[in-house]
């Protein structure tokens, strides 16, 4: 089958029980990734016409998804998003809409943007954050708004961002307790949601607000113990890589989380600078498989272009602009 030049899709089309049936728009390099994903996740049949980047359509069963909460050691996964010399927030928007569509209970600690910002982008991706919040599926901590409340208003009860008022805040225990309370199962007799998910955008802000790297790592550690291990849910966190060699705290945070992560998605700007048709490249690194494998390709790199309602991925040098 002839390969049509053009954009490709990541993790879109596979055939049942086979690693060879792949999106015809992808070349051999991309097919290796889908083959690996199919093998590791036992993906089932999908339509080749479905378009969704970095994940399946809303109709996809969660357990068949690349980023499924299930794993062989019966625990959830930690996915680390990292961006260097570019804006990796498109990954955050993807995971937010993806997990809401998958009927997961989502706790979103949003420290960078307002609720309306995420809501507007979510609408483009087919989800209503307002409705999700109203029906109890989404617990949204709006950091920008909460920070003003914490600093300028006396709080009767411990606030998740209590550390902003304290001169020597040693830990993020109140924030962890907020997350635990938001995602704890409700004893209503009938489970409305599939799996809990914690999404954080982004952790580097906590360093800027005066918390130490180890305190942030402790917070993530407790979240992993609760969300991933106890509740069998997933976590997705974003950390910026400033590239500043003197920012030791950020390096400790980034490397510490990297060692704890099952999957690392690193969005990087192009070394050659801005390009209209290629907005950056995405490095995918699988880590800590539940079972060690003999020979395994651990990392993949794709270039991408962000469009209005989707993102196109393609192999390096295969952008439509250069073909």
């Amino acid at each position: 089958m002839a390969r049509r030049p053009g954009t490709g899709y990541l993790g879109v089309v596979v055939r049942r029980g086979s690693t060879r049936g792949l999106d015809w728009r992808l070349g051999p390099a991309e097919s290796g990734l889908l083959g690996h994903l199919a093998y590791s996740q036992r993906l089932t049949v999908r339509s080749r016409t479905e378009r969704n980047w970095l994940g399946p359509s809303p109709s996809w069963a969660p357990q068949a998804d690349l980023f499924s909460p299930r794993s062989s050691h019966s625990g959830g996964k930690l996915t680390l998003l990292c961006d260097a010399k570019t804006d990796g927030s498109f990954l955050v928007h993807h995971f937010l809409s993806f997990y809401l569509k998958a009927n997961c209970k989502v706790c979103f600690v949003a420290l960078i943007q307002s609720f309306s910002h995420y809501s507007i982008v979510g609408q483009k991706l087919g989800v209503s954050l307002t409705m999700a919040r109203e029906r109890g599926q989404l617990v949204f901590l709006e950091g920008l708004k909460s920070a003003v409340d914490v600093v300028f208003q006396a709080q009767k009860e411990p606030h998740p961002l209590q550390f902003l008022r304290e001169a020597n805040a040693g830990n993020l225990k109140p924030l962890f307790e907020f997350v635990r309370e938001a995602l704890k199962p409700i004893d209503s007799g009938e489970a409305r949601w599939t799996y809990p998910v914690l999404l954080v955008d982004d952790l580097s802000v906590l360093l800027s607000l005066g918390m130490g790297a180890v305190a942030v790592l402790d917070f993530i550690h407790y979240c992993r113990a609760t969300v991933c291990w106890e509740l069998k849910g997933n976590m997705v966190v974003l950390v910026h890589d400033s590239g500043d060699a003197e920012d030791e705290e950020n390096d400790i945070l980034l490397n510490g989380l990297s060692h704890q992560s099952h999957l690392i998605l690193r969005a990087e700007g192009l070394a050659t600078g801005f390009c209209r048709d290629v907005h950056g490249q995405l490095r995918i690194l699988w880590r800590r498989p539940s079972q060690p494998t003999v020979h395994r390709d651990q990392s993949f790199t794709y270039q991408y272009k962000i469009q209005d309602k989707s993102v196109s991925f393609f192999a390096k040098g295969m952008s439509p602009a250069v073909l």
Partner: protein
Amino acid sequence: MTPSEGARAGTGRELEMLDSLLALGGLVLLRDSVEWEGRSLLKALVKKSALCGEQVHILGCEVSEEEFREGFDSDINNRLVYHDFFRDPLNWSKTEEAFPGGPLGALRAMCKRTDPVPVTIALDSLSWLLLRLPCTTLCQALHAVSHQDSCPGDSSSVGKVSVLGLLHEELHGPGPVGALSSLAQTEVTLGGTTGQASAHILCRRPRQRPTDQTQWFSILPDFSLDLQEGLSVESQPYSDPHIPPVSKNAKARTRKCSLVSGQGRENKSCRGWGWGQGF
């Protein structure tokens, strides 16, 4: 060589590599990175120790007990004593389940053992401890627990102690890493090329010069090792890049002086960077 002879030879080389890492006892430092994780090798060593009949203690701080035990059969799992510091390492739950003194308290408690059975203590991970404890405190505890089988004047025959410490290199500066390196009898630095892992093994044997070798390997699902033929660099004297080469005449003069003055015995107790190991 017939295929069966090759298989036995392969198994023999696997055991030789694992045995060489555990033979010296003391602190075995496993230095890994984000790209080349070391927990699989740690689990392979844990399995080897358990099969040898040693007491195996796991101080689990970084991953859950279920995740650490995954891949071991029931025979191995039954031999492991797991100390869980993953669920609530800082006692945020304020329950009485937390071990008094936390991971450091548990490590210090192991210094007080008196039975003669060899023991292996796996620290998962040493980096987790080093980020939260003063380096000097941790080094003192490691020195005490890894040298309790060689305490002078101790009438009780305490069995050999091996401490396996998983260290994530990118998290620490050269000072703490150097301090831990000076305590280690064996250092394993993980690396590799695309799809193939390697282990650079540095051994500091008593009364011998440090030796180093590189072994290419992969870890199978049952945490046994698959060593790669033809790529290993044989053991050779370790050349510390920070120490200038010494001429043969200078070595002879130094050796003669040491024998006359008895200074050689003092040098054997020196640790770190190869000093006192045959110079």
